[in-house]
């Protein structure tokens, strides 16, 4: 019996030993290289804030790319990272869009979420208009992303009165603020920064179809001067950092979902005689012309549901020169070329300023351009299709958490290659795509 016990013991020990064995892969050690991540700040607009689905809300804030970067920096000497989160009981922040169901024809119902908001009121700013105000945030801040901010506005002292998302971070109430954004973000010392500014200098013009006089393209010289100024301020105390370029407007579903061909086909389905779609165009002699495949239409033309509706005179919207699609829904081919030209210039500025300061560059123009063509990442099909492309959220401009994770990894690759650091990438599959009920 004793002998048997011994054998049992040996066999049991051997099996336990086997069960504990693991194949060896040498995990690369995480290091900071020449960078110092002890206090990282993120400077930028809505993309930096984690804005998605047409709003800023807690879930999106938690899935911002700066949060992801900071999470990876922790293993390389990174410190605490604070995003000005909305409170749990006001988690829906500004409100946002979600898919609430489907119509019988299989199309999604995209509706706003309006409960548990962090809206504290509205204030009329003389000479500007109404500004929605949000519950103030008073703690430490590392993520300075402010939805809507343009590079043009970073040194504009009254800006804290015009943008509710910025006002929220400042101690003073709207109407009393005079801290320029660039002073606010650089007030506390930092060792590393990311800067993704400039998108709205082109995008504001584009998403409003070039129709809003207050939202025109930022002058090229002004852009160059302000970008140089911003980076000089951010690097003034020796901080290292990463900057990002501006994506091509034609790589976002906001402009690629509603197409000329789809509009024409849709109209002809109802009325086969339809030969043309008419638009207000900046490049047409009388301001109106027939649309072409080179003209881009906004997603809002679809969601506003105006196309084809007859006016008081009985003329259907968009199908006759006397009732053309308004300029705010159309980025005509001249405007499109104009935006592309400016974006290309802005990006050349961003790259040359970054090069002069030895900063890393995350080339969002190229990265999102590659996704537009379609890629498969970890078993997920990624492209720039609306709703189904997994990259863009329901506003067609901002990203899904999964999309932000892909962007975070591009930032990480750029940082690693510039500074010799070995930050680990994030696992994108841990983040969600568009939610379906």
């Amino acid at each position, binding site marked *: 019996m004793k002998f048997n016990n011994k054998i049992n013991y040996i066999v049991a020990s051997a099996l336990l030993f086997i069960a504990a064995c693991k194949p060896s892969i040498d995990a690369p050690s995480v290091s900071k290289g020449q960078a110092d991540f002890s206090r990282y700040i993120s400077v930028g607009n809505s993309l930096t804030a984690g804005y998605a689905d047409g709003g800023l809300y807690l879930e999106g804030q938690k899935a911002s790319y700066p949060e992801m970067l900071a999470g990876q920096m922790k293993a390389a000497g990174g410190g605490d990272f604070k995003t000005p989160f909305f409170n749990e009981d006001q988690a829906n922040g500004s409100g946002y869009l979600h898919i609430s169901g*489907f119509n019988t024809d299989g199309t999604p119902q995209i509706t706003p979420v309006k409960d548990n908001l962090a809206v504290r009121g509205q204030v009329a700013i003389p000479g500007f208009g109404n500004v929605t105000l949000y519950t103030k945030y008073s703690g430490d801040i590392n993520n300075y992303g402010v939805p809507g901010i343009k590079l043009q506005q970073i040194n504009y002292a009254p800006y804290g009165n015009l943008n509710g998302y910025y006002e929220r971070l400042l101690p003073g109430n709207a109407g009393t603020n005079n801290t320029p954004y660039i002073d606010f973000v650089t007030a506390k010392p930092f060792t590393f920064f990311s800067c993704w500014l400039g998108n709205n200098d082109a995008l504001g013009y584009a998403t409003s179809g070039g129709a809003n006089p207050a939202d025109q393209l930022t002058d090229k010289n002004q852009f160059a001067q302000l970008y140089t100024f911003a980076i000089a301020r951010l690097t003034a105390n020796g901080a290292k950092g990463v900057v990002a370029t501006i994506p091509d407007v034609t790589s976002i579903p906001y402009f690629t979902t509603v197409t000329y061909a789809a509009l024409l086909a849709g109209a002809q389905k109802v009325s086969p005689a339809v030969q043309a779609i008419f638009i207000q165009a900046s490049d047409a002699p009388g301001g109106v012309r027939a649309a072409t495949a080179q003209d881009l239409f906004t997603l809002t033309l679809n969601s506003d549901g105006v196309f084809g509706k007859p006016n008081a005179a009985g003329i259907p919207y968009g199908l006759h020169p006397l009732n053309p699609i308004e300029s705010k829904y159309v980025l005509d081919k001249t405007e499109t070329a104009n935006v592309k030209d400016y974006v290309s210039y802005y990006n050349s500025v961003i790259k040359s300023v970054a090069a002069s300061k030895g900063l890393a560059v995350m080339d969002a123009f190229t990265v999102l351009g590659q996704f537009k063509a379609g890629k498969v990442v970890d078993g997920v099909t990624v492209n720039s299709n609306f709703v189904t492309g997994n990259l863009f959220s329901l506003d067609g401009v901002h990203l899904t958490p999964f999309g932000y994770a892909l962007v975070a990894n591009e930032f990480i690759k750029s940082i690693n290659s510039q500074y010799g650091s070995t930050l680990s990438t994030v696992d994108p599959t841990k983040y969600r795509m568009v939610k379906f009920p």
Partner: protein
Amino acid sequence: MRKILLGILMSLPVLVFGQGFQVNLQGQKQTAMGGAGTGLAIDEASLFFNPGAVSMLEKNGVQVGANLVFLKSAFLQTGSSTVEYNKSEVAPPFQGYAVFGSDKIKFGIAAYTPFGGLMKWDDNWSGKYSVTSLNLKAIYVQPTVSVKLTDYLGLGGGLVYTYGDVNLQRGVPLSNSAGESGKATLDGHGNGWGWNAGIYLKAITGVTIGISHRSKVDVKVKDGDAVFELPASLGPYPTSFSSQLALPATTTLGFGIYPSKKTTIAFDANWVQWHVYRNLAFAYSPTGTRIPNTNSPRNYKDAAALRLGIQNQTTSSLTLRAGIGYAWSPVVDGYVTPEVPDADRLMLSAGLGYNVTPKFSVDASFLFEGLKDRTQTNIETGLSGKFASDVYVPGISLSYKW
């Protein structure tokens, strides 16, 4: 054109299994000798290794055995510093043989599991959209006849009935209202037929030679259960699937060499016809849902394995064995998947046999397989990273001869 039409089609599970799913554990003696045994007539396991050698067995006998397969895999995603490990699950392949008859003709029945595998990853691991769990079992039952044509030549063959059972689970990249990803489970079984035949030859020089061929078996899975845990608003989803698993043919040339009365050396060369995996098709029912039928290219190539083993009868009741082998992977670059992250592998084995009485004996074996590290980007899923795997297989069998 008032609203946007949704064209969501989800490309879904494709079962892939490579050499990792070929289980070369059909006898403890042979396993201990690197998996070689086609050119030998040492025990009832010849029913599997070479039905032609069965006629040369000196006694009738029955044998039952089992192994425990510990498959250990690790994955490091490109760019990441976090190594992920598969879950510790143990697959228990088994074998059972009975041989009886006269000196000239022998009959036998064999049951064994030449294909199978068990791989579980965490439900939320980075490759979840490729696979989270696969449990595959193929049980072969083989009635056999073996005839000794002369004292130097044996022929044998058997009909193979195959029962296959598969359970495949995978994440689906669709988020529900809680932001959680979806899941697909395919569970089905089927059967198929094949054959196994062999020739055994005693050369004048004292060398024994075996040639065997186990045919391809197509296991048709019909009306397997398909369960999709996905957002309700995108349903309905298919409830069943059908597919066909091709279990490849293996041709083996084996030699037995006898340097002394108590020492045997075995050498086998296997040729496995993995090219049957040109592509794999899955059909779902009912049709017309967002889950389309799939047909994925695999482009496996045929692959070889070489096995060398030795046994020495150390005392009248104790036999010691050892072996070494090398198997080439049939999975070409770009098609490696985490079901079994296949790679060329080195096999080392050892074992012993003990005769408790002249009729009753116990054999034990231990096999280690080390797979080469393989850094891959899968063409279909884009999953990119480095796989490393080791396999540990202890086993034991009991046999009774008369």
